[in-house]
């Protein structure tokens, strides 16, 4: 019989707003059966009801929630169980691995005490031996070993552990009372790709070794495909697709599934190269080339719309060196003051931002956070700077922006060394704008969109009508009609709109270059594609280049011209996206690529170095 059975489950929240009382239905008539030992992935965007569904299995719902239908966990109907019985079912029959990397552990208690607490509460029946403290200690040690942590780590407080370690603690805690069902709610969100792969491996082996049923929640289909046999896609509280993972990934039936899948592109798939659902790069360099060649395979190796040819051919038939700087800058700000600027675009790339032997060291640290880095960003190109957290990529970006003084080396802007004086920096910061990761935190919640965008032009005493400037910037960021957004405050906007406001704030200053730190990491899949499309459009239509810092190689594949790989403060590999991602030379790049979960569930398949050689 089934381990878990949801029958016509409907969960709604009573809400109270100025408009009166109402109900919001989070889960709307869901039927789902999970057999013993089955692994099921639930995918969906935020607001799809997937998290409500997950926590409803233990009835961990706020007081304003109403459950209709039934939740059968083993033989108990969770929706009608008494509180006392419910508490004894919690953790012993089903346990949840929360997003431990963030705040799911109590910050003021040692982690092993938090694991032992679960044993202690459920020390009845089979677990009665855990009333004894020595037995609990032994069990916690055993659990720590099973999740691959040294026993000594148990004496740490959560803040002393890395994200991956905390997630391991969460897993040890979840396994403590030997539950039959394990629910993993976004277990790897906010973790690095490399750590994510380790955590998923561990989770899979723990589940398989014990024959547990696994329900995994994620917004990332590829993560689910790599871990689960079956995928369920949710949208607006309903299940819109349900099937074996491989089948769902290969041949999605519902448009929403396809949209989710396309948000995490397969590296090497020409259908997603410089191409997003809402915008396809006109392949600016090839517009000129295409005129000459009249079609065929375009010179920068980007296949034409009709071309669905094999990737393998790419590196050999890309003769044009200028592919590195693909966009002839239309309006000339970037090339402005340089002598002979008029001839420059044709002559080759114009460096806007350069780092020469740049090193940054913090305090008395033994190693450089950024170590002798040489980097050139040309006008009108998108450079993706990839690396895992701690690789120094954010420090490098901050140093390029003049927010951090280099220990050694220098930053060059249009060939001139960056001066760390206030006046000079102000002019520089106008020309090179910064887009932050979390738009919600980057925007002042009390400022209207108009205020947020107008602040830059006011600070820099820009000429022209302020309203027009703001409207133009909003329009460039695809917030149309701009006037509609003037009085809105961030709270009234969606995540994607907020990020567009941040970008509009940067565009209002008519910058020559953007530096963006993980611009889509905090956004939902469908919104992510829209914001990336905006970057691509700005580059193609306005010639605005960008340095995009990311841990997401798919993003690089989507929009970047060049990719730079950072590892332990050094640049270990750089080059054209096609070259680096399809034919990685450095060990670390290969490692990064190998851990990207792919649709087929076997990571290695996405990288085809053999084919490319």
């Amino acid at each position, binding site marked *: 019989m089934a381990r878990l059975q949801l029958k016509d489950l409907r969960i709604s929240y009573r809400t109270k707003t100025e408009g009166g009382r109402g109900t919001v239905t989070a889960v709307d008539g869901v039927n789902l059966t999970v057999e013993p030992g089955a692994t099921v992935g639930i995918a969906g965007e935020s607001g799809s009801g997937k998290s409500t569904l997950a926590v409803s299995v233990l009835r961990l719902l706020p007081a304003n929630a109403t459950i209709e239908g039934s939740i059968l966990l083993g033989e108990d109907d969770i929706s009608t169980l008494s509180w006392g019985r419910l*508490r004894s079912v919690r953790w012993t029959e089903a346990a949840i691995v*929360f997003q431990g990397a*963030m705040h*799911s552990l109590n*910050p*003021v208690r040692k982690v092993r005490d938090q694991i032992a607490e679960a044993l202690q509460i459920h020390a009845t029946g089979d677990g009665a031996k855990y009333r004894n403290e020595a037995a609990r200690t032994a069990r916690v040690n055993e659990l720590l070993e099973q999740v691959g942590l040294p026993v000594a780590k148990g004496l740490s407080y959560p*803040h002393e552990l890395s994200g991956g370690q905390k997630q391991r603690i969460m897993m040890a805690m979840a396994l403590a009372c030997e539950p039959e069902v394990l629910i993993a709610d976004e277990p790897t969100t906010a973790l690095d790709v*490399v750590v994510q792969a380790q955590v998923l491996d561990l989770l899979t082996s723990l589940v398989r070794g014990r024959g547990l049923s696994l329900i995994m929640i994620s917004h990332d289909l590829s993560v689910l495909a790599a871990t689960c046999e079956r995928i369920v896609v949710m949208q607006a509280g309903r299940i819109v697709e349900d099937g074996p993972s491989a089948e769902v990934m290969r041949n999605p039936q519902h448009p929403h599934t396809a949209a989710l899948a396309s948000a995490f592109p397969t590296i090497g798939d020409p259908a997603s190269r410089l191409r997003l659902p809402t915008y396809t790069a006109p392949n600016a360099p090839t517009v000129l080339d295409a005129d000459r060649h009249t079609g065929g395979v375009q010179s920068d190796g980007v296949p034409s719309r009709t071309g669905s040819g094999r990737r393998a051919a790419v590196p050999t038939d890309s003769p044009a060196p200028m592919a590195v700087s693909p966009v002839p800058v239309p309006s000339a700000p970037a090339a402005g003051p340089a002598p002979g600027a008029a001839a420059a675009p044709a002559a080759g790339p114009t460096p806007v931002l350069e780092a020469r032997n740049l090193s940054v060291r913090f305090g008395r640290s033994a190693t450089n956070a950024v170590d002798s880095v040489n980097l050139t960003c040309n006008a009108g190109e998108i450079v993706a700077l990839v690396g895992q957290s701690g690789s120094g990529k954010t420090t490098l970006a901050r140093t390029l922006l003049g927010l951090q003084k280099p220990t050694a080396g220098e930053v060059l802007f249009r060939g001139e060394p960056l001066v760390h004086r206030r006046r000079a920096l102000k002019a520089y910061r106008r020309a090179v704008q910064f887009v932050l990761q979390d738009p919600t935190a980057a925007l002042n919640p009390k400022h209207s969109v108009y205020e947020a965008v107008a602040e830059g032009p006011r600070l820099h005493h820009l000429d022209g009508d302020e309203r027009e400037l703001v409207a133009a910037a909003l329009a460039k960021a695809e917030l149309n009609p701009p006037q509609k957004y003037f009085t809105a405050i961030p709270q009234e906007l969606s995540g994607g709109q907020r990020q567009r406001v941040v970008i509009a704030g940067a565009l209002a200053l008519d910058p020559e270059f953007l530096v963006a730190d993980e611009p889509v990491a905090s956004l939902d899949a469908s919104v992510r594609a829209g914001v990336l499309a905006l970057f691509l459009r700005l580059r193609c239509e306005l010639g605005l280049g960008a340095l995009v810092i990311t841990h997401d190689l798919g993003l690089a594949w989507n929009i970047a011209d060049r990719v730079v790989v950072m*590892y332990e403060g050094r640049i270990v590999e750089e080059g054209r996206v096609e070259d680096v991602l399809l034919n990685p030379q450095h060990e*670390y790049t290969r490692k990064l690529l190998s851990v990207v979960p792919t649709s087929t569930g076997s990571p290695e398949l996405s990288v085809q170095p053999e084919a490319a050689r």
Partner: protein
Amino acid sequence: MSNALSAADLVPGEPALDEPPRASSWLRYAALKAGGAVVSLIMVVLLGFFAFRILPGDPVRSLAEGRRVSAEQMDLLREQLGFNDPLLTQFLRYLADLAQGRLGYSYTYSEPVLNLILDRLGPTLLLTGTAALISVVLGLWLGQRAAWRRGSLFDRTQTGLALVFWSVPTFWLGLILLLVFGGGLHWFPTGGLVTAGTTATGFPLLWDIARHMVLPVVTMVAVVYAQYLMVMRASLLEEMTSDYLQTARAKGLREDLVRRRHAVPNALLPTVTLIFLTLGGLVGGAVTVETVFSWPGLGLLTFQALSAPDFPLLQGTFVVFSSIVIGMNFLADLLYRFLDPRLRAA
């Protein structure tokens, strides 16, 4: 570009880069904070001398009030008390005395200031200590109950009541209580530490003191417990949406265990600093209550010194009050670090 990295370098178990930050030493931290406290104390000593010299009024004239004293005698008195010396000389004398642990000589009481202060310190600590303990316990308990059931009748009445008391002037409340329960109903004595002329010892003495303490303690508690309630309530409300509480519930903890074991310890962190900051202030705030209830403590002593004005005595009480505040802050720093493991790494 080097390819020298071996596969083993590439993140075998966990990335080497996210090793936990090392904790800085306790000793270093304590020394740093103690240093800060000493600097504040020195500032207090300097300020204590000059601040009171600005006060209007001639101490010699007020000493001589109501008596037939000739101008020569007054000059002689000034000479004896050292008021005719330049301010700098007086200041150096003050410092020299202080270095030997002497706080000077009170001319209104004709006694060393240190003796006066030591005599009065006990009653003040007894009064404020009791009041502080009660208001902290009461405030924190009510605060966490109110937060846990936000919007309930309990929450609304308790916060409302606390704020009413908080906004009432201390002396006014003291006088009302004195009139009603002391003067009118005769339930409690109206002032002093013990009944005048009592010869009781042992338990009867304690009982007498306890009865005398009731009204002043109630006055102090009523006025200050609201701030503990409000801070505890606010910081618990902040913790209540935390993910780790969801984890605790999922583990099967009873709701009151979730609150006691997980939510409250975290909510206490910001509260502790406030408690210690206000405890120091509470001793200083005793001036009003002690004056209203003629409680023979430091507060009353300060009041009397002010009305003279008796410079050495004022300086003495000022230094003592300030030291208590500074000491409490120092304790708060140490305790906060002990309570919050995250600060140990900072």
